[in-house]
């Protein structure tokens, strides 16, 4: 029997088929599973529905590479540099092809995933009332409070086929520790039918079980564990590496034109076999510069009884 630990190519090959819905970038600007996204591009997936609150430039890359037919998100751009050029080309000119956009806010996307994880059909909220996100949207229905008749927005549940979550460490079963801001990682993972864990380190079960409060979600949800050091670069992973701001800026400039993006795509993804090749292409010393200059260990907690 094949265990859950596998290469990125195997995990994407088995669990991210054409036409599926995939949640990525759940933590927001950190822990973005770029290595997984790049493998999706290399395997030429098509007609994916991309789900995520924001994704920084990962969704832009997947859209530009022609992998996505639909985006369900609150924000698609380049957080430190500006607009997302491929997203713009797709929405404005159907380049490389048509893209359906399901607009959310960060709150409604987290409510939709929370509803998915709770097995609830929808969750009511008061955000977005009066906005143009509501009319014609399949994600929202207007309703009212039973007692007062005050307006409400019912946010429909989202249940992605697969969530790809980057974490600091995991055991071989997918019991994973994750720390820092979590964004929608927890509710997103729980809402999804399966979870691919991408871990900076694969550690022993004993180490994970020493701190069960830090476990993100039940390993029963996890279908694959990929050991991929630097898998989130250029986004940061607390305790492992910082954000490579310059990389986002360079991407912003390179992707200004379709031709520029094609070249970027070839150089950083298509002509590269795997993450090792990608890391080798980074300027010498870049990885060292991104490593933390000092450790900040949390105090141990005592689970004794």
């Amino acid at each position, binding site marked *: 029997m094949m265990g859950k630990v596998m290469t990125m190519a195997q995990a994407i090959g088995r669990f991210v088929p054409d036409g599926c819905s995939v949640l990525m970038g759940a933590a927001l*600007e950190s822990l973005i599973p770029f290595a997984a996204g790049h493998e999706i591009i290399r395997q030429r997936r098509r007609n994916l529905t991309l789900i995520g609150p924001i994704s920084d430039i990962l969704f832009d890359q997947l859209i530009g590479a022609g992998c996505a037919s639909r985006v369900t998100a*609150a924000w698609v*751009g380049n957080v430190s540099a500006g607009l997302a050029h491929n997203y713009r080309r797709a929405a*404005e000119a159907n380049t490389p092809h048509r893209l359906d956009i399901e607009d959310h806010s*960060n*709150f409604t996307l987290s409510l939709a995933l929370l509803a998915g994880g709770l097995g609830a059909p929808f969750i009511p909220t008061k955000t977005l009332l009066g906005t143009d*996100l509501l009319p014609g949207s399949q994600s929202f229905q207007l309703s009212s409070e039973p007692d007062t008749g005050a307006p*409400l927005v019912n946010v429909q549940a989202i249940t992605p086929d697969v969530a790809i979550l980057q974490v600091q460490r995991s055991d071989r079963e997918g019991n994973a520790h994750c720390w820092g*801001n979590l964004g929608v990682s927890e509710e997103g993972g729980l809402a999804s039918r399966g979870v691919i864990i991408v871990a900076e380190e694969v550690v022993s079960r004993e180490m994970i079980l020493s701190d069960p409060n830090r476990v993100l979600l039940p390993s029963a949800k996890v279908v694959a564990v990929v050991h991929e050091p630097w898998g989130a670069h250029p986004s940061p992973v607390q305790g492992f590496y910082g954000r490579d701001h310059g990389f986002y800026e360079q991407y912003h400039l390179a992707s200004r034109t379709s031709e520029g993006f094609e070249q970027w795509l070839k150089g950083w993804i298509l002509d590269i076999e795997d993450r090792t090749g990608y890391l080798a292409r980074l300027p010498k010393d870049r990885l060292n510069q991104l490593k933390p200059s000092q450790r900040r260990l949390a105090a141990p907690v005592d689970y004794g009884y």
Partner: protein
Amino acid sequence: MRTESSNTQYTMQEVMVAVAARQIRDGEMVFVGMRLPLLAFAVAKRMHAPRAVGLFECGLMRDEPAPELLYTMSDPPNIAGAIWSTRMINLMGMLQQRAVQLGMIGGAEVDGFGNVNTSYIGSRQRPTVKLPGSGGAADIASLAGRFLIIMQHERRRFKERVDYITSPGFGEGGDWRRRVGLPGGGPAAIITTLGTLSFDPETKEAILASHHPGVTPDEVCRQTGWPLRISPAVHETTPPTEEELAIIRHYDPKGFWTRP
């Protein structure tokens, strides 16, 4: 652009940071956005609002500004030393509980009732510009006790009607927010590269409250796409003090966010 004033040079972005910081009251819970609001929070904490608490929608709460410049709210220096590192929905829940007094958002287009568009310019089906979208801005605008809009002041961005309401201001004016059921108090000010606009308490129209040093009220009106009312009490914006500037430059020494 750098402006000369009493031997102190500063950029318009630095003026905007100082103006935004002064809107933060001591002890408030503040939903801090990206870019200039990050700096405004730091200035307020160091100046007049030492007990203000910052909320970051990625899932962080801080009672001290991060020790170094942030490019995004999830940068490692913002996580280390946070008073809470959690799920986004917990912070959004506090917003919906009305526990957050102030939020700050940016925008690509704004209208005379403080409605903000960060989604589509032109039609939704075939936009001329597809903007990134709401992020958490629509939630802040819907739910925060009050919010600030921080924007580049250009005629093409200050439109009579925005093409799309991403983040609700006062809608069509008057009691629109109450009628549509929005719990938050709406925009308190639009802080721009040229001045500060506040809102008529009755009609909810935007009114020019102050013009930045070196800018005339006329210039602000010329860069506004509707007939902008000028407050009888209109005045020159108090420029950033030496102390405010020192804090801004401490956090943004290279001017990543504050030098155009």
